[in-house]
């Protein structure tokens, strides 16, 4: 396959995704595109998101119509360098489709990467490891009430060039529901023990929200474990936190209530689908989750304020640090970034809310990739 012709294929966003629907094309056939341009919108049962062009050139073929559903890996479009022959493009499409049919059959028989469990600090920690298995790993740490699936738009993309580990914090996802004191020190220490358990000496640490505070705490307590830090809408930089989100998330037991709470996370509340709400409810129904969330909320956000503010200590770190924030974040104020020591790059994403890594996945992925080399 020549690099002159690039396939745009249906991405796999999360373990449960096996197909996706093209809802709308954002670029006309024959139009020029740059790498990172938004090409189309894809809807899965869980979430709708835009998909970006992997390469620059011309969108020479749109192969799936709006409203059509195709399996993960299927050819959606072709981006060709200017001057690629039409016949060459047709041949590319034909051979891709032939190979895809064979590959799909093989994929149906093979087993995709599945989450595994490891014991860290006496707790069973669930994690998903994907990618090259080489180099300094990237470790992705979700926020309060989240889980490793929050990285569904990031882990697969980053895994193309890195060893990428996403985990469920204690009390979250499929990890143990015992959260000890539930404070930041507990979370950071569990992360350190998790890295030990996986034999990871150093990692590029990426943390979102509470996970941001946790990786920051880890890097401050164990400076040698961090190769770099990427903090997305992190907690730990200022005292404010949206207390109605925290109490709403802990308290909500019903679909409607939960949906309203989750919509606070996104600049575009339409992203909160039936399945997304259902997944959160399924998690919250597990024995032990209610207690775990209450314990963490009480320890980390007592009286609706953040208990630990580490902003000034970021300057103590010897490794590169970057901060990414959605300008429309309603959970942790973007203004907290102002408390950071000068020189720490802050990337403000205008269109995103608290979940920039979902709402502006392409840009966040590029920033993480730039940091991790």
């Amino acid at each position, binding site marked *: 396959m020549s690099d002159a012709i690039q396939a745009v294929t249906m991405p796999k966003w999360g373990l449960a995704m096996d197909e996706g629907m093209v809802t709308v094309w954002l670029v006309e056939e024959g139009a020029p595109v740059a790498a990172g341009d938004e090409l189309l919108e894809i809807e899965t049962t869980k979430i709708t998101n835009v998909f970006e062009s992997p390469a620059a050139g011309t969108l020479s073929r749109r192969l799936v119509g709006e409203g059509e559903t195709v399996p993960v890996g299927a050819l959606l479009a072709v981006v060709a360098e200017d001057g690629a022959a039409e016949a060459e493009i047709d041949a590319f499409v034909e051979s891709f489709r032939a190979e895809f049919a064979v590959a799909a059959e093989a994929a149906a028989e093979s087993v995709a990467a599945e989450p595994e469990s490891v014991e860290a600090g006496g707790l069973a920690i669930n994690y998903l490891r994907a990618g090259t298995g080489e180099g300094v790993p990237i470790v992705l740490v979700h926020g309060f009430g989240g889980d490793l699936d929050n990285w569904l738009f990031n882990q697969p993309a980053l895994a193309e060039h890195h060893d990428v580990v996403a985990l469920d914090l204690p009390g979250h996802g*499929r990890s143990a*529901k015992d959260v000890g004191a539930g404070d930041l020190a507990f979370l950071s220490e569990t992360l350190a023990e998790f890295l030990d358990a996986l034999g990871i000496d150093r990692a590029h640490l990426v943390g979102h929200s509470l996970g941001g505070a946790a990786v920051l705490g880890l890097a401050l307590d164990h400076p040698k474990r961090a190769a770099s830090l990427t903090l997305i809408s992190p907690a730990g930089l200022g005292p404010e936190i949206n207390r109605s989100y925290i109490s709403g998330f802990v308290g909500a*037991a*019903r*679909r409607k209530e939960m949906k309203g709470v989750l919509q606070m996370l996104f600049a575009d509340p339409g992203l909160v*689908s*039936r399945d997304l709400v*259902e997944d959160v409810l*399924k998690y919250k*129904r*597990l*024995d*032990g989750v209610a207690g775990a969330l209450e314990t963490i909320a009480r320890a980390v956000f007592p009286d609706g304020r953040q208990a630990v503010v580490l902003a000034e200590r970021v300057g103590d770190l010897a490794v590169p640090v970057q901060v990414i924030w959605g300008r429309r974040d309603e959970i942790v104020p973007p203004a907290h970034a102002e408390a950071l020591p000068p020189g720490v790059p802050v990337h403000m994403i205008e269109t995103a809310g608290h979940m920039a890594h979902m709402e502006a996945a392409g840009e966040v992925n590029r920033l993480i990739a730039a940091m991790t080399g």
Partner: protein
Amino acid sequence: MAKKSYRQAINEALAQEMRRDPTVIVMGEDNAGGLGAPGEDDAWGGVLGVTKGLMPEFGRERVLDTPISESAFIGAAAGAAATGLRPVAELMFVDFMGVCFDQIFNQAGKFRYMFGGKAVTPLVVRTMYGAGFRAASQHSQCLYPIFTHVPGLKVVLPSSPYEAKGLLIQAIRDDDPVIFLEHKVLYDDEEEVPDEPYTIPFGEANLTREGEDVTIVAMGRMVKFANQVADGLETDGISCTVLDPRTTSPLDTDSILESVEETGRLVVVDEASPRCNMATDISALVAERAFGALKAPIRMVTPPHTPVPFAPELEDLYIPSPEKIGAAVREVMEHGA
């Protein structure tokens, strides 16, 4: 998380609750099986194997086989529930309620009210229901509307393995008498079911499909059919909401009304006999409280008012099918068009 069958999900719920709480016991005909007989112990584990393995783990003291004597043991379960245990009694087929109904609706179901709130009766009656097993008129009925009719009882109709586990654990932990109805045709259905214990609250309908044109309310096995229909119609541009009430008592009237307010069209699918069933009840609710939102008459898809027939050809005609549901949806869509 692994795929588990409806049967395994129920078995796992029972085992996990028995491990968690020593007051949980199970009882029923052949729940272990082989008692007093020369062959194997735990010979059956329930007539369809749902309770298999519980007796070897928890012993005969907590997994009680019973004589075929529903009045006595369902009543005993009610009495045990009022005096400190959390019994899960298995009424093998719901059709057998006729021989023990007094103990359910006059005793267990009324203790709390009759005794001025001074009784708790954490009883679960697990029972198998529904047509499609070629089991004829006395082993195929639904009958859940009858339980739903009785104040004091809670009535649960799990429609899938995930639902079955979470709703059964909720039922066991609930302090009121719960009738837990398992559709016999679903036992081998599989889906992802968490290994950990979890609970699904009663009284909140499950939104299994979200659409704009028609609300389909379905319960038990009919949820599966309704989902199939909704998926099929999607390609024809008809967008259906499917609501599974999960519990017919308490009934999530808010979700039903809100959905009909949005879609303006209602199809209710009910495998129970058509007079005084959930379809009539839900239709009456919507007619009374969301009449102004309706763009088309309500359609009820139910079996005919006959006993469940034996011959496969007849039984297949009897059961509400995806085709009949689909036709009803198209009909309400075409109304006035």
